[in-house]
């Protein structure tokens, strides 16, 4: 496998898009994509959390390997993520109380977003170095942010149109997500050349 930075970037942003191709963070993807304003805020806070927690997990992993305690990996990672989410919450509260009020409920939700746990786990299993990890975390979470924004824009239009009462809600959202996912399948061809 090619591990150049460009390849990692394009691979995790488009080809293996976290949401549409590997199905990570589905709960927030479907639950919070109703409005564009909440969607992009959620996307940015997920990006921030993923990047910070992956950096912390990177150094924690070095420590764990040093002490031969790899079986503690999962527990330490999830604690790191919970701590990072708490940190994000405090940071946002301190710097911008207005944004904090708007994000309020959504911030703690990031802990149960599986995309946040997936990045450190994959980084460990692929033996990425620090630069590769950073690029992977930024591109992957950027992909998440992009797809949740795309879906929210489509859903804002769907709210204006006449959908059968049976399909309203989750079902129509899933169909839209399927069409978006089909569009992203087109990027799969880029994987071979890179």
């Amino acid at each position, binding site marked *: 496998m090619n591990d150049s930075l460009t390849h990692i970037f394009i691979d995790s942003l488009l080809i293996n898009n976290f949401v549409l191709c590997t199905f990570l963070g589905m709960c927030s993807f479907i*639950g919070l994509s109703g409005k564009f304003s909440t969607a992009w805020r959620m996307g940015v806070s997920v990006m921030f959390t993923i990047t910070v927690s992956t950096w912390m997990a990177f150094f924690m992993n070095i420590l764990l390997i040093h002490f031969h305690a790899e079986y503690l990996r999962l527990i330490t990672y999830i*604690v790191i993520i919970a701590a990072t989410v708490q940190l994000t919450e405090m940071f946002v509260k301190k710097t911008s109380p207005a944004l904090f009020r708007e994000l309020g409920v959504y911030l703690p939700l990031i802990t149960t977003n599986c995309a946040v*746990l997936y990045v450190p786990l994959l980084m460990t299993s692929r033996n990425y170095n620090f630069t590769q990890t950073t690029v992977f975390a930024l591109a992957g979470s950027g992909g998440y942010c992009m797809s949740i924004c795309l879906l929210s824009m489509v859903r804002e239009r769907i709210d204006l149109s006449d959908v059968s009462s049976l399909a309203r809600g*989750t079902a129509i959202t899933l169909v839209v997500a399927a069409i978006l996912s089909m569009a992203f399948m087109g990027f799969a061809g880029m994987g071979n050349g890179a």
Partner: protein
Amino acid sequence: MSDTQAPVSCHGATPPPPSDNPFVNGLWKHNPVFVTVLGMCPTLAITNSVRNAIAMGLATTFVLALSNALVSMIRKIIPNQVRIASYIAIIATAVTIADYLVKAISIPVYLALGAFIPLIVSNCITLERAEAYAGKQPVWKATLDGFGSGFGFGFALCCLGTIREVLGAGTFLGIHLFGPHFEPWVLFVLPPGGFIALAIWLLIFATYRERKDKRKKALEQPASELIAIAEVHS
């Protein structure tokens, strides 16, 4: 989604119903996938074959039963403020055990499920069951609930896995169904198929529920109204 619909979120913790059997509740009335729409990531990601779906269902059942039992055992010791953190630590322990168990039992299954076994930690179902049920109920009930929700989850995974494997590969559990001339509908094995298959199942359930409601309403109507309606129609 309109605002009147139930929001789909990881924290859609509904209180347990007054009904008595936690196993049946978890399996059917509160089915994690079809009713409360929790744990979407593994639901969509690894249902491209029935075998993966069964393996994932069993792993999740194991984690749910173990973590529910442990949470229920120490529910009186945990202070209220740190309960979520302690639940997550317990769940992570159970998932680590499950991870090593699957690796020991079958390497092909372990490779097929990939990162999704460790990701059971961040599956909303486990935390939701711990928070909404196991933290308040005696051990045997909590364990039973864990098994019920786990099997309910596994059942839903198998429903999806069946559609996707039969249409996408023309096989069921690896057995060819349609003979050599079947052209597989590859889309269903690929990611978009997951979304579409789940949408189909949700539509089927919505239709079923609406019909049931209509029938109930028709039964509740007094006989005189029914006669009036019949006269109008005739």
